[in-house]
């Protein structure tokens, strides 16, 4: 076996001790070395004998272990670490720009909640500079539109803070910035798209959408917004309120009751009339009887019976007529009472319509303000959207600010050394400009995810030479900030154009040049108080309108007024705008003219409304009169019947009174006749008896006496029977 390398030739003593002997620590190995080596006179070490195979193998291992026992570092591991570090550096160098590009895009997407695209990124870590050839950030609320885009820019970064996980932008400069440009593809983030079905969009946009509907809820001019009726068409106006009229229902009720009354009581009256006529005929016939011609008792008795029956029938008829009269009268009174309320209801309905006509002297004072308000709402809506967008960005920055160190499982007390730690995101100074024909600049200072840490509010300033627009805003996100948002906006010579909703007053468009100063203070959480000073000039109104109409008034008003100044106070709270106060320089001077014109218009309108009401309710009143007339006629007919019945009752009573008198006369005559017959019979009997006595005095005396007695008995019986019969026949009830 080959001898290990140090022992292939003599080794100097010093080298042997340093490289081999001093690096072997096991005594058996040291003894083994001493055994197989020998020191020469020259001071060198060499093998003292030929080694066997096992000895050579052991020596080789000892030498190998001795070699390993040198140095403090494991060079192999150090080499591996070095290779790894170099690989990482090379990778970073090659893909650095791409990594920075993706990192920046992720940061922007997390801040703005929408897709962000950076192109041509160049990162210089030592200088802390990032330059890019273009940037597009989509609008989270409108994915097919860019929130803003930049042509080129340069970012001066604090690289060391970037290593610490903090993005501190010392300066940002960008040119070619533009807002609201269209995108070719949707800028919604995948997560935002999936959440858009629910509340995700609002969450992504930081509530940026919450105020749109509230502010631009109605930018059209309406009559109501001017303190006027919705329509000046009297017929339409009355029709609008006709559902509330009570006269209709009342007239209908009276008409229905009257019709029913006439229908039911006409038949009843006819029936009573017929019955009355029959009774009257009977009474008339009875009354026409010649009582003096009645010579027999039976006829007299029949007459009496007839008069009694007729009297009873007449009484029943009168009773029936009286009942019918009472019922008909009661119903007629109720119908007439209901009818008597109709005029009051009619007056009430008219008053209701009249009250619905606005009194422009109290409600129309915001006439001019109402005309301008839609424009202001639209402009405020635009700016409120931008403010909400900025607020959403600030909220997302704050969400990323929570970089509290994680508490270790074993941890002591943390000692602070007062060194200000930068915020997680900090944009100290940004200057964005739009190059080309239009000169616009936007500068941002002190934008931070942790304003409390930086101790500074964010200042935003925007200037546009073309639009003569200037915005200065201070957004103070510090916890103890007295005024979280203070914004001053001024626009000079901005074109003002209104063409939506003017058709309500017959106009087509309103144009002017406007200078506007907007102040906004407060917080988005607790509400913003704002003021607007507006000055418009070169006002022009187009449209073909009647000179005396409201549209004509507006046209005349604006065309003859050189400058209109207006002041508004408003409050923005949770997405809704409330106008607190508004006044213009024309309120007092032209106000009277406006009032007169409106008064005249409304007077005409009021007359038309009254005429319309009369036209509408006239037929109803005619129907009412017709129903009432029917009721009255029917009631009269029933009353006539009652009078007739009572007359016939009197006649029957008179007849009844006459009947007993007639029977007395007949009885007296019959008694007289009976007496005469009795007397005649007696005389006849006496004559016969005298004749018989004379013929046969003795024999006939007895016969005469018997005959006389018989005749007398018979005469007495006949008289008695006749008298009794007469008495019985002529005896009337109660006699």
């Amino acid at each position, binding site marked *: 076996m080959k001898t290990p390398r140090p022992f292939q030739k003599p080794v100097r003593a010093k080298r042997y001790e340093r490289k081999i002997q001093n690096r072997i620590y*096991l005594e058996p190995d040291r003894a083994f070395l001493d055994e197989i080596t020998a020191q020469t006179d020259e001071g060198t070490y060499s093998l003292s004998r030929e080694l066997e195979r096992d000895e050579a193998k052991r020596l080789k291992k000892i030498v190998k272990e001795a070699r390993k026992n040198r140095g403090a570092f494991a060079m192999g591991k150090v080499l591996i670490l070095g290779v790894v570090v170099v690989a990482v550096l090379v990778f970073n160098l090659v893909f650095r720009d791409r990594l920075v590009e993706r990192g920046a895009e992720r940061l922007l997407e997390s801040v703005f909640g929408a897709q962000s695209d950076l192109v041509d990124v160049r990162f210089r870590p030592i200088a802390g500079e990032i330059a890019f050839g273009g940037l597009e950030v989509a609008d989270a609320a409108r994915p097919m539109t860019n929130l803003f885009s930049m042509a080129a820019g340069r970012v001066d970064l604090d690289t060391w803070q970037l290593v610490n996980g903090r993005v501190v932008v010392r300066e940002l400069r960008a040119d070619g910035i533009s807002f609201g440009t269209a995108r070719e593809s949707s800028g919604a983030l995948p997560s935002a798209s999936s959440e858009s079905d629910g509340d995700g969009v609002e969450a992504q946009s930081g509530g940026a959408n919450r105020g749109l509907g509230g502010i631009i809820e109605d930018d059209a001019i309406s009559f109501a917004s001017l303190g006027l009726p919705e329509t000046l068409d009297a017929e339409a106006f009355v029709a609008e309120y006709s559902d509330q009229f009570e006269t209709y229902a009342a007239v209908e009720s009276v008409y229905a009751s009257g019709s029913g009354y006439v229908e039911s009581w006409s038949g009843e009256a006819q029936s009573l009339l017929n019955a009355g006529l029959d009774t009257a005929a009977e009474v008339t016939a009875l009354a026409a009887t010649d009582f003096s011609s009645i010579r027999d008792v039976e006829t007299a008795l029949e007459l009496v019976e007839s008069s009694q029956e007729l009297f009873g029938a007449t009484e029943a008829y009168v009773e029936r007529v009286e009942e019918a009269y009472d019922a008909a009268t009661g119903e007629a009174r109720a119908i007439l009472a209901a009818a008597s309320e109709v005029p009051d209801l009619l007056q009430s309905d008219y008053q209701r319509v009249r009250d619905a006509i606005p009194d422009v002297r109290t409600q129309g004072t915001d006439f001019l303000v109402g005309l301008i308000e839609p424009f202001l709402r639209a402009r405020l809506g635009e700016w409120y959207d931008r403010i909400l967008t900025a607020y959403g960005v600030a909220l997302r920055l704050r969400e990323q600010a929570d970089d509290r160190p994680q508490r*270790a499982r074993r941890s002591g007390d*943390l000692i602070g050394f007062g060194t200000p730690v930068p915020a997680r995101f900090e944009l100290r100074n940004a200057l964005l400009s739009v190059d080309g024909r239009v000169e616009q600049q936007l500068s941002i200072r002190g934008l931070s995810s942790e304003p409390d840490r930086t101790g500074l509010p964010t200042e935003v300033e925007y200037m546009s030479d073309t639009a003569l627009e200037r915005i200065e805003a201070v957004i103070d996100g510090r916890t103890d900030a007295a005024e979280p948002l203070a914004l001053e906006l001024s626009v000079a010579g901005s074109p003002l154009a209104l063409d939506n909703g003017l058709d309500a007053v017959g106009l087509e468009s309103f144009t002017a040049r406007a200078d506007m100063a907007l102040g906004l203070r407060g917080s988005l959480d607790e509400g913003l108080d704002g003021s607007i000073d507006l000055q418009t000039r070169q006002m022009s109104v187009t449209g073909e309108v009647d000179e005396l109409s409201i549209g004509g008034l507006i046209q005349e008003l604006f065309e003859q007024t050189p400058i209109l100044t207006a002041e508004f106070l408003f409050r923005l709270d949770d997405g809704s705008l409330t106008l607190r106060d508004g006044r213009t320089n024309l309120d007092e001077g032209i106000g009277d003219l406006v009032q007169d014109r409106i008064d005249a218009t409304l007077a005409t309108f009021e007359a038309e409304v009254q005429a319309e009401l009369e036209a509408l309710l006239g037929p109803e009143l005619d129907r009412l009169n017709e129903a009432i007339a029917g009721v009255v006629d029917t009631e009269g007919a029933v009353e006539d019947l009652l009078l007739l019945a009572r007359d016939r009752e009197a006649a029957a009573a008179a007849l009844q009174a006459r009947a007993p008198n007639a029977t007395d006369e007949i009885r007296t005559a019959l008694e007289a006749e009976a007496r005469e017959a009795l007397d005649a019979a007696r005389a006849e009997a006496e004559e016969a008896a005298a004749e018989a006595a004379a013929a046969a005095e003795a024999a006939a005396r007895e016969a005469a006496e018997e005959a006389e007695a018989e005749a007398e008995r018979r005469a007495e019986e006949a008289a008695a029977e006749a008298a009794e019969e007469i008495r019985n026949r002529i005896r009337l009830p109660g006699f």
Partner: protein
Amino acid sequence: MIIRLVAKLIALLNSNKRAAEVGAAVAFGFWIACVPATNLLFALLVLVVVLVKVNLGMAIVSSLGFSIFISALDPLAMRLGEAILRSPALTDLFTRFAAMPIVPWTRFNDTLVMGTLVGGAILFVPITLLAAMLVRLYRKHIHARIANSKLVKAFMATPFAQKVASALQGVRRVWPAA
């Protein structure tokens, strides 16, 4: 794996490795056990242990062994760390450290981290020396007695010991009886 590790450690104690390396491994193990894990210092310590020529196995085993009772020393370490961190003479230095990038990741301003860092550093050399001395003593006086004891010989004759011996050939050289 564990058997192999145990065998390696046994072999290490009676190998030609420098006693100081073994001692340093024990000292590093103690240091790593002392310092809380969630900071950059811990990572640096581990990196140093990996890069310097110390026995990694011994460092791991000793770290695990020390970590069982090391928390008992935390109050002491915290007092030491607080004393250092609140030292007026060092305030400027620490303030600069706090302002530096990356350095705050070491959590040096944590009293426990600072206490264990400094305490581990102070005890590093004594522990290294002590452990190295013990290794030498073992190699010189104890190993031979143990190796030649009947009990060990009987144990080394068991299948388990055979398995250990076959797993690590180096043991055979150290333990001729095996």
